[in-house]
């Protein structure tokens, strides 16, 4: 069903200028395609560089490992550098997002709005794309974004789904169907963040048997505190299977002992 919808949406996208006429089902199909192209049916591990710039403050710079098991929606972030941050981490199990600090040996239950490592990034920036599960789409506009022809969708959070941003505008490249730009709004309609996805990488996934799309660079601009920005660079990706007991508090604790 999902692949049928994806095909349908591809056909719709490939036949301009019909975006404005796309119905809700076809929009959902497009979101499913975006999710599916980034989903690896096996495990995922990535080495990520994170940099936060704020006015009148020294830059916050981190390196971290992102672990994902998309099959059962698990996510873990383990900070590796600088040394003072090494061993800190986040663990998402079911609807719980935990943060851990080895300096105090405590776990803390946090929310979707948690600023990861004190930067303007959120859990969802590192996690599997779940746009179709979390949002209802509608057509907004179409036009050029730099050199690329893009379609803009307006996404509204589904009832009872906990997301960091209840309204999102998404610009999708018409040719590759990759996300180019994402603007996130509060319920009041106030623009909070603008994120750009200027580089994507195609990787062959043995577990999926096909290619997986991974954003290599995400640039997030704070729209409330205008001078602030966050850079996420995905330096390398490992698609080998991870250990069975990896996504546990005990495993993350063990990394700082």
């Amino acid at each position, binding site marked *: 069903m999902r692949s049928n919808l994806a095909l349908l949406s591809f056909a719709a996208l490939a036949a301009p200028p019909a975006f404005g006429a796309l119905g809700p089902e076809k929009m959902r199909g497009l979101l499913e395609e975006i999710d599916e192209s980034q989903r690896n049916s096996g495990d995922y591990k*990535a*080495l990520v*560089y994170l*940099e936060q710039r*704020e006015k*009148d*403050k*020294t*830059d*916050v*710079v981190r390196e971290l490992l992102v672990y994902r098991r998309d099959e059962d929606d698990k996510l873990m972030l*383990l900070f*590796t*550098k*600088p*040394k*003072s*941050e*090494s*061993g800190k981490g986040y663990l998402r*199990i*079911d*609807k*719980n997002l935990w943060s851990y*600090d*080895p*300096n*105090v040996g*405590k*776990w*803390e*239950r*946090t929310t979707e709005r948690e600023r990861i490592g*004190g930067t303007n990034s959120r859990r969802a920036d590192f996690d599997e794309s779940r746009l179709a599960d979390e949002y209802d789409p509608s057509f907004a506009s179409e036009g050029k*974004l*730099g*050199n690329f022809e893009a379609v803009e969708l307006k996404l509204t959070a589904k009832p009872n789904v906990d997301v960091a941003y209840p309204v999102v505008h998404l610009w999708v*490249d018409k040719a590759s169907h*990759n996300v*180019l*730009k994402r603007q996130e709004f509060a319920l009041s309609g106030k623009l909070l963040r603008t994120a*750009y996805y*200027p580089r*994507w*990488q*195609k*990787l*062959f996934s043995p577990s999926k048997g096909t290619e997986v*799309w991974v954003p*290599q660079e995400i*640039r997030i601009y704070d729209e409330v505190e205008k001078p602030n920005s966050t850079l996420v*660079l995905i*330096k390398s*990706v*490992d*698609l080998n299977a991870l250990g069975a007991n990896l996504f*546990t*508090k005990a495993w993350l604790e063990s*990394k*700082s002992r």
Partner: protein
Amino acid sequence: MISAFVVLVRIALRNLFASAINLVIGAIILFGTALVVVGGALLDSVDRAMSSSVIGSVAGHLQVYSAASRDELALYGDFGGEADLSPIQDFPKVKRALLSIEGVRKVVPMGINAALVASGNTVDLVLAELRELSNRKAKKETGLEGELEAQKQHVRQIIRVLRGDLEKSLAVMDKSAIEPEDLAALEQVSKDEFWAGFDRDPFGALEFLENRVAPQVSDADLLYLRYVGTDLGEFLRSFDRIRIVDGGPVPDGKRGFLFAKFFYEEGLKLKTARRLDKIHEALAQSGKKIAGDPVLERYVRENQSQTRDIVLQLGPEKTRLAIERLQRALLSKEQELSALLSSLFATDDSNFQERYRIFYEQVAPLLSLYRVRVGDTLTIKAFTRSGNVRSVNVKVYGTFAMEGLDKSPLAAAANLMDLMTFRDLYGFPSAETAEEISAMKAAAGAKEVDRSRAEEELFGGALVTQGSPVAIEESAVLGVRPRSRAEQLEDRVYTAEEIESGVVLNAAVLLDDAGRVPGVLRRIEELSGRERLGLKAVSWQKASGILGQMATAMKAALFFSAGIVFVIAMVIINNAMMMATLQRTQTIGTLRAIGAQRPFVLSMVLVETLVLGFLFGGGGALLGSLVMLLLGARGIPAFDDATYFFFSGPRLFPTLEVAQIAFALGIVTLVSIVSTLIPAVVATRVSPVVAMQAEE
């Protein structure tokens, strides 16, 4: 000359009691003087009390901070945020320089910041303790079986309560409103098999409980914690309004935390107990009644309906004990703790005191009344100045109150911590970390993008590249974390030099005499310019921000009120004296007709006024002094939180000084003379013939 004066005094004394109008005027002078004495003394006493509350609590007479700071110092916060201050460069040098100024007694280093402290829900807290015990057992620590078993039983008791709640919900709600996963999770952990397997895989079982059961309880708290980092020993010795309420002071040179008692009660106490305390205070101190008071009635309703915090805190044994005790105290056969608690909290004006006693004698000893207890370790997570997130553990030694400010939500929200812990939470990255970060940035090689042209710059080239996965070895990328210093830090004793050498954001300057404030302010500015200390000095009123403005505004309001009373008194005296003098126009005409010279007539009227002023003004001053003596001995009770602040405590004991009596007497006499002389001069200018015919 003297004989003339004696004659005039005799005439004045004779006239004084000969005329009823003089007695009326005398009574007015007496009342007016008493009013000025009492009003002036009260005004001075309130001003002194209010000022000493703020000066003696945290502000000192003056505050100094770096002139390079972006914001102005705001000791009690700046509309919910904290002022952005630059650190004082070389605090030991600044301290030496300030102490060299005449009149400066002490210089106390400080820094103010705030953090949001998240505490998990009740189940999270219980499970965290179980995890801690399981970790210790996994490290082969022995003798933990009893504690582990008790904690497991506590969790099982919580699960029974949650299941009971869910079953009740199922009976009244649509089943679709309840998540099937929640129900399934509760059923699984209710089974004996789950607990029989706990010891085999404690961490697996804990993960299940933490992720599937704990989220079903939603009583987590998020506390806004404001703290003043300081040299705690020096602080407690310097500020006379601070007193330790619970626990004890942090030993000199050690790391530690002291909660402000008001904050501790409002933010960390079990909500039910806090509501009971508030009702108790309202009935006992303010003479209120529950019936008809919407706030107190709401407290009673909330206590009856919100018993879960208590029920979830108790393990099976304590639950049994609580049921037994409440059944006995309430003469009830009810078997369910939550229903018994509801009955206990069904209070009205007739039974409140008894129920309050039962709660504190029978139930409270089984409970943890505070989320963080004295002796516990508090974890504080804050954003450092450089934007990093930093967490520290710090031991709570006790609670303190600032006399006079202990009921002010603004002032009493500030807690105290040692300066070393403050620096850990506030600090910049070390030189080593800064170097490491520099290397990381260079290795990342990210290109600079102009935000205003981001779309053109970012979307001008290829969007997609073909890559291949690589094997990432944790050991190769995981930095070696410096060994945790937490355990050593708690016991370490820092020297005064260590405490003072480091980041200090502001410092309180205490003087020998509050009257020296303007002079010392000028001297500090001169010294700072001469020795390039880069300091800005402000008075306590300015440093205290809203609180200082409140004190100044209140002082102005008090002066205004006293001024009105004073003016009214003076106008009455003036009118009475003028009327009395004008009534004597005929007498003055007669005196002038029989040869009395104008100066003699004026002197006669003036002496009469002086005698009147001294006699009745003196009486008024005596009366005012007696009133002040009485008030000074008994005290004036504060009737609400605002007067509590103005009185610097629950009662104001006003004092009276000789200068205030002299001032009252002097001003009353002066007004009387002015009020008499003008009509007298007018009267002497009237022709004697006309004056003598005035009443014909």
